[in-house]
């Protein structure tokens, strides 16, 4: 077992760090305030190959792997949790799922365009009345002679209003329950049956677009089906087990951002004639943040490493990492806020943003409770 990063991995972390600090940080404050998704930042990520980490060279990727992607996510997340979303979505979402389940035509049509950023991708599972209970979804795809007709509503969809294409999960046969769900590759633009709207009422992650999608007799061709009919639930679970790793890495990034800011502040801020870092109760908070960050990071790296070794379906490792990293991020942001005192409560300092952004991790792509269910089932079946 080796804990050293390779020179290449170190270089990639450096690129991630430089990118976050030079391309995201300078405009972060104003973009977060105005809920602005900066398309040119997205394009720059594409140019550097960020979206190609887990994609073979044949489709425009660089095969640097899941571990590299997790490290990049951490580096970006320590500056901006918002920006890890479009990054992870583009790569672990549609592109990697199409790579695994798509036919050659679908792969060639979508993957290179997703990797080079010409096409913005999304995936649509959640609905107003169906979250953790994926099979409770109401969206349907009715087969016709020349395709399918989609009807239904999706909510809390990352990139909904900016996406050019989306994986859409819908029932082709409600009677078969979860085995009646299918997955479709849907072109989001220029379809009169598809309407999207931004969700402006979220607590954080303001630079990452989130929205809802309404399908009203939206016609899509036969070729839109990904994998087999009825395979949607399986694809969905497979996909979530990848995108969840991104959430976990985002949590690690947030935890790190919080503890770095807290350490810096604790060394600068003086009260009672000494830096507050000298006080043991502050030290307790800093130590806790570090321990949880370090533990979360190791869980993420292990899960990513397993994927790079070919074990893509490593649900136990991924859910363990996702659960722990989400909690670590939330704890770290809470502790950092305490270290910062009233400045932690001020929107002029980054801590309150981390606090808001971290909370999302206990909900997205399987709540913390769902992760515990997955973990328990896995360890009980052993």
């Amino acid at each position, binding site marked *: 077992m080796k804990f050293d990063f390779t*020179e290449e991995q170190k270089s990639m972390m450096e690129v991630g760090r430089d990118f976050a600090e030079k391309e995201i940080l300078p405009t972060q404050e104003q973009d977060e305030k105005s809920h602005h998704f900066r398309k040119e930042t997205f394009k720059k990520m594409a140019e550097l190959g960020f979206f190609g980490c887990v994609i073979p060279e044949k489709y425009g990727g660089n095969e640097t792997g899941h571990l590299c992607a997790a490290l990049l996510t951490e580096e970006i997340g320590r500056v901006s949790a918002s920006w890890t979303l479009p990054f992870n979505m583009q790569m672990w979402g549609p592109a990697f799922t199409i790579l695994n389940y798509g036919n050659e035509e679908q792969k060639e049509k979508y993957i290179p365009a997703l990797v080079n950023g010409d096409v913005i991708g999304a995936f649509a599972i959640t609905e107003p009345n169906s979250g953790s209970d994926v099979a409770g979804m109401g969206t349907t795809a009715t087969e016709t002679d020349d395709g399918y007709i989609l009807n239904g509503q999706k909510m809390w969809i990352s990139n909904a209003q900016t996406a050019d294409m989306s994986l859409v999960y819908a029932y082709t046969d409600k009677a078969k329950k979860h085995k009646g769900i299918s997955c479709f590759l849907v072109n989001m633009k220029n379809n009169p049956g598809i309407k999207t709207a931004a969700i402006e009422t979220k607590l954080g992650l303001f630079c990452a677009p989130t929205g809802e999608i309404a399908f009203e007799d939206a016609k899509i061709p036969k070729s839109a089906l990904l994998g087999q009919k009825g395979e949607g639930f399986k694809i969905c679970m497979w996909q979530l087990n990848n995108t969840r790793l991104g959430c976990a890495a985002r949590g690690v990034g947030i935890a790190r951002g919080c503890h770095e800011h807290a350490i810096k502040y604790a060394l600068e801020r003086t009260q009672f004639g000494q830096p507050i870092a000298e006080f043991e109760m502050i030290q307790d908070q800093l130590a806790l943040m570090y321990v949880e960050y370090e533990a979360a990071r190791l869980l993420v790296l292990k899960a990513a490493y397993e994927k790079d070794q070919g074990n893509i379906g490593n649900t136990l490792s991924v859910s363990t990492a996702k659960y722990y990293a989400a909690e670590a991020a939330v704890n770290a942001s809470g502790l950092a806020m305490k270290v910062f005192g009233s400045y932690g409560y001020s929107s002029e300092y980054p801590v309150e943003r981390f606090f808001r952004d971290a909370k999302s991790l206990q909900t997205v792509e399987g709540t913390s409770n769902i992760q515990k269910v997955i973990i328990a089932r896995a360890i009980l079946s052993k």
Partner: protein
Amino acid sequence: MNIVVCVKRVPDTETKIKIGGEGTKIDPAGVEFIISPFDEFAVEEAIRVKEKLGKGEITILSLGSADAQTIMRKAYAMGADKGVHLNDPSECQDTLAEAQALAAALKGMQFDLLLFGKQAVDYDNGAVGVQVAKLLNIPVVTRIIKLDVADGKAIVERESDMGKEIVEVKLPAAFTAEKGLNEPRYPKLMDIMKAKKKPLEEKPAQLEAPKLSIVKMDYPPARPPGKIVGEGEEAVPALVNLLKNEAKAL
């Protein structure tokens, strides 16, 4: 067009410097090392020249300990083709000895452009580029902020004591890069992976006995503790009074 770029591994500018136990070198523990920022401008410029001309080869030359290869790989990932590492386990502190070793290695190399940073942000002497050029008997233009190459010569813009200058120089020539020359690119992930496959030759640096020695290294004298005069514009009259009568700075 063959281009050689000399680069040096230095502590990150955001790093605090701690003096090591022997008192004549810094303590490298916990220090992030980077390619010297001005050298990075030089690497970027070499790549831009190559891209513009559509041909050429970029060689990276670095003198330093074995760790120098890390920053050479960074230059490879940006777009350099190959490199030579002049291994110096002693971490020489004499710029002239370093320049002589670089010049000795360059004598066996073919190049049209020889690029340096205007200074390495460690010892800050800002002399190696000029020293190497003189030792090789080629012209040198320092602190360039623009470089155009055509027909066996280069037209450059440089910062001078007078302001700015346009200088024309016959090739082969040496140049030292100033901030403003360009904005270095981020290496692409794919190119980072490819960098490890590019050739890197290692040979011992031919260093003569240094003609100077570091007696000791010190921290800068501490500034006397300052005071917060007050908050907001109400504090301004008190500040002006202090500047005038206490500091005598106005």
